[in-house]
């Protein structure tokens, strides 16, 4: 019984491990590193825009400072979105 169970676990583990080598379905390409970096930067920029908005609405930033920071952050965010689109198009074409 013990031997049967050991063989069962062995076969199960081996099939989990090596199935990608025999699978007809190709393993996913995974995300392009550039795209991952840009997505991380985009999410952080979105948070930064919302944080600046909250900092202004909670009285930590003056109206002038907020306007300048918000405009600069939105410009940077749009640039990130442009680059993200470009990378995705390149990746889709590849």
């Amino acid at each position: 019984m013990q031997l049967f169970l050991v063989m069962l676990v062995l076969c199960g583990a081996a099939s989990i491990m090596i199935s990608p080598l025999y699978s007809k379905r190709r393993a996913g390409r995974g995300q392009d590193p550039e795209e991952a970096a840009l997505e991380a930067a985009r999410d952080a920029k979105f948070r930064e825009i919302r944080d600046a908005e909250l900092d202004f609405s909670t009285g930590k930033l003056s109206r002038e400072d907020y306007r300048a920071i918000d405009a600069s952050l939105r410009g940077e965010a749009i640039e990130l979105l442009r680059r993200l689109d470009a990378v995705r198009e390149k990746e889709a074409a590849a």
Partner: protein
Amino acid sequence: MTLGRACLFLALAIAPAGALASIYGARSRRREWVAVGRRSVYALAAVLTVAFAVLESAFLRSDFSFQVVSTHSSIATPFFYKAAAMWSSQEGSLLLWMWLLSLWSSLVLFLTRNTLRELAPYATAVLLGFATFFGSLVVFLANPFQLLSPTPADGTGLQPLLRHPSMMIHPPMLYSGYTLFTVPFAFAIAALITRRTDAAWIRATRRFGLAAWCFLGIGILIGARWSWSELGWGGYWAWDPVENAALMPWLAGTAFLHSFMVQEKRGLLKMWNVCLVLGAGILAILGTFLVRSGILQSIHAFGGSTLGKPFLGFISLLVLGSVVLVTSRREYLRSPEARSYSPLSRESIFLLNNVLLIGLCFVIFWGTFFPLISEAVTGNKASVGPPWFDRYTVPLAIALVFMAGLGPLMAWRKTTLAGARRSLQAPVLFALAVVVALLALGVPASKPSALALFAGAAFALGSVAQELYRGVGARRATSHEAPPVALVQVVRRNRRRYGGYIVHVGIALLFIGVGASAAFQHIRDVRLSPGQTARIGGYDVRYLRATSSVSPEKVVLGAVLDVSKKGKHVTTLRSTRGYYPSSDPTAGPVGQYFDGDSTTEVGLKAGLRRDIWTAVQPDVGAMQKMIAGIDKRFPLAQGDIQALLLSVVAQRYAAAPPPAVFRLIVSPMVEWIWLGGIVLGLGGLIAIWPPPRARRERAPASSWSARLGRELSRA
């Protein structure tokens, strides 16, 4: 070979094979091999789950053919403790470590299976490298499936000190924290190897770092609560090496959870973050090493072991590898451009908070390892005690509590002086008002550290309250929602920010508890006979009567005390001491119970204002003559006769008890520490909760602003 042992061998084969497959896949860009590496982690988790289930089932069935079961459980051990007894052993706890590592590794690799193409294979290899090390330990040095022949009829039982409900959750929480810290560690190593030092690896692993921080923090607090409510010494923190070992990675984790944000937002502190993450990962392994090696004296180090050298070798490898990688990749760890920030900004406060946290971590490291350092330098093993730790950690803790209040008040990038003044005004006034009120209520000015801690905590609470008030006000100005709805919405839309603020509330509550209980605690050791009274902290504690009971597991002697204040009954406390039999056959059928281990059940009346605590130490020495006489007359008594003799001793104790020693403690606001822990966990949960996924959208160049607005409103 048994199923469990076979699973361990299999795990030891899978881990290095998977690591090699991952590296080969990454270097040759063969995706199917990368998938083999990732799926090796899943297979490892499956195999270790079987091994874990086999051992756990052996404990629950009291299968004493397993050596580890016979030495850590017994037939009389209650079912609940049989389930937890597994990780009281060296072998079982290492298996738990490895199992949790495989589960968390599987989770992170499953979540990143379609992302981080370059990083994931190397991170997989690092995680499997950890599994290989721990697999080697459980296969070659600490085999949990060692069999005994012949099978003993009963086991020696779980160590009495560990018989507490916290045993079920305290070690798994700590080990979850330790193993989760290996996830950011592995991705940091992968980022260095691939030179991808942007924020992508942080984005993928931040939640795991936060989960590690929460598990470890709550695990530490559960341990402190266990110490307070169960161990008879009367404290919740002793600067024990193993307590310190858990605290150090937690502090490093606190630091990187703050400085991560600076890198994500501004691209700054890359080198600092990588060093902190690597440091936290290594400190997590160091924590396991301290518990398992027995290198330092600790109530947690369950005996010396043969694991010291392999752990030391592994830690040296981790340190050396990290230093080499960081040094060789320093070019990639520089900020992309010179970005300065104002001294009055959240970035500056985070940096200062990081310096304080790492300073605190260093002080604790130095104090913990001082016995080894002093032995290496002078040849004498000298250690430092709580006063030494308090001297350095208290000022740093006070500064950190103030930082917890200052951080939320500063804007990112820059805060103008006028803005800072506006934000600081109310919290500072609140803190000052609290100090004045405390002085007026009679808190002595001779306790400056406690007053400073209260002021810092009040400042932190005031600043978070102001932030919530202003945030809700801003939300209501546009949405016209009811205040509770606006509060929920503002927190939901900014989980990381407000989750963090709630954590700060938890920290403030915790430090109020620490400050009050450390500075204003009353403690007395008294010797009382029934009917006598002792006075402590304004309370009269009267020893009413002695109690006793006998079970096959232990003999319990105790006391009932009445606590009153100005003649008015406050509470009744019951404290007992349980005596467990030793395995020495020459000790006699009754004497063996008083020669073995003993544990205290604390009498505790807990409350938000103060805890009244007592532990009894019955004078067993006064009964030695009687016990020796019974053992002499009935040297071979067993079973029912032995139980009868024990009952006689217990009844005599209850009828005519000798004076007992009591430790009496009245400690204010200890409960605030546990309350702070709950709030801290809640805040962590809010911060960890994932935001809705941003939908992919394309937009013509003319409508970028509109698209940004849409994506922002959804993110």
